[in-house]
Every structure is written in C-alpha cells, then in structure tokens.
C-alpha cells in the first residue's frame, strides 16, 4: 500500500480505501477501540457509527475531539488515539 492511500495512526501507517472514514479504515484493520474513558479507563471506539455517541473520538492533525466515524480519511493525515474524554 502506498503512502498515497494511507494516514498514520500514532505514527504507524494505516491504509484506507478513498471514501472511507477514519473509523471505517480502523475497523477494516481489525480495531474497534482506540481510546479510554476518563473514570474507569474503559476502552471505547466505534459504537453508533453516525456521529451521535462520541465514543470514537480521535485527534486529527493536532485537533482533538474529532469523531472518527464522520471524518473522511485523507492521505497523510496524522491521527493520534488514546484520547481521554477531557473536554
């Protein structure tokens, strides 16, 4: 997979098919959780898939609080996971 169709997740390249959201690419790679809750450090990731539940938050190019299920993947994006839900 070339860099043209990958973004990075915590520094590691993750391939995607153009048109997929960040969450779709993560789920396609087998990941369903990528952050933890503030209180109980419970894992969270994909749940509602349509932007309602906010479980799937990631940081994209330095901007936190992004719903991975709504953000279209673009080549070269730098996604970091492991957000705790501090607002």
């Amino acid at each position, binding site marked *: 997979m070339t860099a043209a169709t990958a973004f990075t997740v915590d520094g590691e390249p993750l391939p995607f*098919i153009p048109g997929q959201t960040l969450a779709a690419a993560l789920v396609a790679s087998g990941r369903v959780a990528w952050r933890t809750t503030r209180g109980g450090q419970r894992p969270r990731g994909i749940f509602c*898939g*349509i932007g309602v539940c906010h479980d799937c938050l990631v940081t994209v190019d330095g901007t936190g609080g992004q719903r991975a299920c709504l953000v*279209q993947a673009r080549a070269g994006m730098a996604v970091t996971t492991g957000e705790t839900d501090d607002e």
Partner: protein
Amino acid sequence: MSEPRDPVMASGPHGPVTTSEPRDLVVVGAGPAGMAAAATALDGGLRVVLVDSGAAPGGQFWRHPPLHAQGTLPTAGLHHGLRTYRALRATLSAHRRTGRLTLLLNHHVWTTAREDDGFTVHAVDRTRAPEERPVVLRAPALLVATGAYDRQLPFPGWDLPGVLTAGGLQSLLKGGGVVTGRRVVLGGTGPFLLPVAAALAARGAEVVAVCEAAAPSAWLRHPVPLLRNPAKWAEAARYGGTLARHRVPVRTRTAIVGAEGEQGRVAVVRTASLDVDGSPLPGTERRIEADTVGVGWGFVPQLDLLLPLGCDLADAGDGTMATAVDDGQRTTVPGLYTAGETCGVGGAALAVSEGRVAAVSVLTDLSAPGLPNARRLAAERAAVARHRAFARAMAQAHPLPPAWPAWLTDDTPVCRCEEVTAGAVRSAHADDAASDHRQVKQLTRAGMGWCQGRMCGPAVHCLVSARDQPYVPAERLIATPVTLGALADSGETTSDHT
C-alpha cells in the same frame, strides 16, 4: 458501479457560500425526506439549499460513499428503494446545474435561529476536517429532516469494544464497505434488524443469531395496516430469503441480556427467552461466541435543531416524542416544516411522501407558482396516512419489553460517557426521588458527557419515569460540537458568506 458523473455528488472544495443569490428554503438533512422535499420544492420553482453532514446524499437509509469512491466501495445489493433514490438524485442534479439548488455536503448544522423574516442556519463546512469553516444561511422557510438514531437499552457488557449499534454496523458497510467482525449476533427489536443481518451475511459475515424481543404473533393483531402495505411484505420476504440462504436463525421473544469480553473485545453473548413482560425466563440462557454484536431497539427522532425553535411535540406512540405537524408537515412555528423520522419513526417510504407533502406546503405558503396538481398531492397524503398506520402497528408490535431493566446489574454502565451505573441511576430515583432524566443528570452526571444524553437518555427515562410517559429529549443549544474559533467567526462571516 457505472454511476454517471453527477454534479450533485461532485466533491472537492467549493467556494464560500454567498447570499447574493437569494434562497427560498433551507433543507437540513439529505436523507429520503430531505431529498424528496428539496426535489419537489425545486420543481415548484423555489431556490433551495440542501445541507447534510454526510459525504453523499442519502442519509442513513441510502448512505453511500462519496461519489469519487463509488467504484472502489461498491454498494450493490445493500440498498432498498434505489429507483426512488436515483430519480431524486437525477432531479437534484438537474437543478444544481441550473444553479437553483445549492448542495452543501460535509456541512454540520449546529444551530438555527428564528428571525423576523425567516430563519438563520449556522453550519460549519468540514470538507477539510478537522478544519472548520463557518457558513451562515438565511431563508424565509426552513425544513428540518434530520432523521433518527438507534435507541439503545443497556445490558451488562454493552460498552465492550465490538458491541455496536445495529445502525453503526450498517453505516460502516454502506458508507465504507466494511464488514465489522466475523461472527455477529444482532439483538433488540424491530424490522431494521433484518436488513442489517441480511447485508452482513451477504457480505461474508457469519450472523450467528438475530434476537428479536417481540413475538411474531404481535403482527397478526394489526392485519389492516399490513394488508394495505404490500411493498413492506415484499421487502420483508427479500430479507427473509437472504437470511434463509445464509442459514441465519431469527430467534423471536429472545434478547441479548449480557456480553462478556476477552482481550479487550466482546467474546461471548448471553441471550435469554423473554416472558410476556419481557423479563428473562430462568433456565433459557444461552451463551453464544461472537466477536461483534449489533443492537437496536427502534429509533429516537433527532430533534436537536427543532427543540430550541420552540415547536410543539407529540407522542409518537413508540415511547418517544416527535414533532407535532399538521397534515401539510407544518410545525407549530410559522415557516418551519419537518418530514420523516422527526415526525415519528416510520421508515424511508413514509419519509419520502412526507418530504413531498412538506415541500408542497412551502410552495403554498410562499405563493410559489409551481404547485403540483391536487390529485398528486392527495395521493401523497394518502400514502402518508397509509405508512403512518403501518408505523403505528410496527411500534405496537415491537415495544420495548417493559421488564428490560431486569437484565441490568447495579454495576452496568448506563451512561457510556460519564460511566454512570444502573445502581447510581436507581438510587437517584429511590433515594432522591428523581423522576425524569434531567433530574438524574443533575444528581449523577448521566447524560452530561460528550453525547449529551443521546445514547442513555431513553434508558434513563425508562428507569425512573412513569411507564406511559414518552421520552422527551433534553434541549441542546448546540446540536453538534464546533470549535470555539468557528463559533467566534460565525457572527463576523455572516456578511462575507451570506
């Protein structure tokens, strides 16, 4: 897929929205209702802005990848009623070419306001997310067609990774071509579970069980709406055929009552047969290995933009409140219209008919020249009545099992965001006399997190409120999170962008 190049779907950066072109109607939501409403309003001569947060028109029901990806992310076989979708898209494309339609995709509307001469709609353009560009739209008429989202009832283990909403599984598949997991169990109630199961099975997942809480005989108590909607039979038969071909067992009067995880993902689902009141029957519990679970208990109308505008609500008959509308889809706020699931959950065919009826009301109220003939309008209204009757029967045949809280343990999280447990919610009710979800929120923080109670609200409501009270969502001043920068800019950019 050999979809023709279609300007309505064209992606790429678009220039700032300018108000030098006057507009008659803003439609928020490009699902079945919003597409149909926009098409009818455009055909009647109005200038329309159609806004949607998605990357392609279609909403959740007709969710598609963005146009540039429709060759590499094929959706063949995943959709129902595509003939209507394609016709609506063709109509919208034609009007976009003439400049009468402005289609704003990847635009998230975060609030609306009523002005003397109409409505102001505040959105952010997230085409280049996480970048946000504020966009302000104004029009004398506003039509909200924001749909619905899956209703959830918590159970022990529902917050394990690999447990999704049924709609979430469907949106990953329709929008991103992704089958989540290998062994899937679906549960909840309502006809929506069947297309999700059929789609996943057809794309190679092993759907181990579909657990439908309702009894199949419940349908037989409502023969008239069933007989008057033969298209629904055909649709159900198609899904039934797919499920039979893939040997997917549908277990009725059965619910997912728990899930257990292993190495950070769901590994086992516990199911049980339900008594008449919905409580699990002792001795009927089964353990099913699965790496993915999809759950949905019907849907909750998405009223975030409607509530702050002050329109009246009405009991939708399925435990939720919906927008009160007259027979022309007018809300109680002049100039504000709504169609589809926001008027009570009833499916895409109903949404399309309501969208058309709503647009005719807009045309009438704005004295537009192009009203459709009376016979066509009468036919649409008859379709609305027929589909509404079907939706009411569906709601009665697929109720929430009254005793569902029996499967909660005290440590089951009810609010996923703030991790408030069933025990905490119950003691807020028992010890502090909280009798609605707002009081529970103040006492426990349930509903105070990122999702603002959209996920836990209906469940908290069931746990503390009187049985026959429908769920009234909390009013949220901001419908979707926006950056402070976009908030600050939205006032100033009005003159530039509108």
